[in-house]
């Protein structure tokens, strides 16, 4: 076992669940693309909704000065 090998799974991820992810991703890709287009169209007309939830985005900024969560 090399230093960077992955620990063997201690639970069964389910083969079906591993295979299906390709299809899930394809459907998600199409959906995200169309959402993105809609968003751009709406922004162009200035009607895109503003979001201000603490969970507004999945992405964590690498910027260390900013807390992810404004509640702190």
């Amino acid at each position, binding site marked *: 076992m090399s230093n960077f090998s992955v620990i063997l799974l201690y639970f069964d991820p389910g083969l*079906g*669940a591993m*295979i299906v992810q390709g299809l899930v991703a394809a459907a*998600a890709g199409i959906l995200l693309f169309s959402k993105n287009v809609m968003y751009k169209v709406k922004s162009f007309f200035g009607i895109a909704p503003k979001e201000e939830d603490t969970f507004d985005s*999945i992405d*964590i900024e690498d910027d260390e000065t900013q807390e992810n969560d404004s509640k702190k």
Partner: protein
Amino acid sequence: MIPKNSTHQASFRDPSGYMFHDGTTLRRAVNPIYFPQYEKLKSSGFFDTVIKKGLLIPHEETSVSEEQIILTPEPIPFITQPYEWSFEQYKHAALLTLQIHKYALSKGFILKDATSYNVTFHKGKAVFIDTLSFDFYEENTPWRAYKQFITHFFGPLILAKYHGTDIFKMMQTHIDGIPVKLIASLLPKKTKFSSTLFTNIHLLAKMESKHSEDYKAETKVAKLSRKAQNNILDSLFGYIKDLKVNEATEWGNYYDKTNYDSESFQAKKGLIREWVMDLKAKNLIDVGGNDGTFARTVSDQLEHVMVTDIDPNAVEYNYYQTKQNKETNMLPFVCDVLQPAPGIGFNNTERSSLIQRLKEYAPDVTMALALIHHVTLSGNVPFEKSAEFFAKFAGHLIIEFPKREDSWVTSLLVRKREFINHFDFYNQDGFEQGYQNYFDIVKSQPIAGTQRVLYLMKRKTA
């Protein structure tokens, strides 16, 4: 070496390490099998960032040897379980899990498991508590915790959308999450027309049953690009973020419906504050505390406050206020006093019962306001029995007794119809007698303008 009997009851599934009790301190041991991952997570600054962002519970490295690394995580006063969360809490736990996995992926790691027990609520918000849940990402591999995420988070949330948050209680009977097939069968047919629900649930259920007996298939390795995996995460995140549950709400106007005027409301608040401050209490639980209105009259004096209610909407509203006010010492959760969460999982100890957790939490003050008439008259629980329940964890008990003349009590009694005589025991004497089996009455005070009496009791020393 750590004596085996001090290991945490829930900590045995992952060979990477385990939690153990060192006296009263909970620590985490890291096994050599996980050293490479741990070192990389630490040296790359991954731990630093996710801790700084408040996503992962902070920890200190206590000792390092060739056999073991010992970490001491920041103590969490009380762990709530997924079946005790309101909808918004459940949602935030799910979103946090996706956030943390996506960030890990961008740094060459993955979340290797995505159970809902890896998240709890601390300092007013969801936090990830399993420090060893990360592993190296291998390029072009699918997310192996994907199914777990569906059975622990996405499935329960979607089911709650259609059937109400009571569905979260199914997590009590399915410690590994609600089986995908079951989720699919409980969803309305129209969900097949949503591309997100069709692929993530119905198609997944189909693929799972198709491949369930395909034991030799390990050689067939499914591939998935990093970009594709990010698409799955982004779309799940977006979908969950917009999820709403439609349940009749009571909390909005609960205090308008109560039968006392604002003067007696203030009188009750004043009494509670005075008594709690006299006790110099540090932590408190308000059982049946609705949206936390009364707990908030003293929360500024306390280190930690918990408010539980049977009504998920009240808990939801409390959680909402906690976030709005940026309160860090308030923990709302759902609990039915007549059926508190049992101990579940292996040995029935993997996830401990509510009573067990409350014993360990050992609140200085337990409040039960406007609760006893429901427990006694709706739940048919004799006074002695409810006193026994409170005595299991309550040192001091502030309990409100509405007399027979109180309009709520009258209405509950009327509903007993021809059995109304069976409830003749419901009176102040009967109440005091029942509770004196377990408690000494320190003081009692009628609440001005009401038919209610507030008691302060102290548990008898056995």
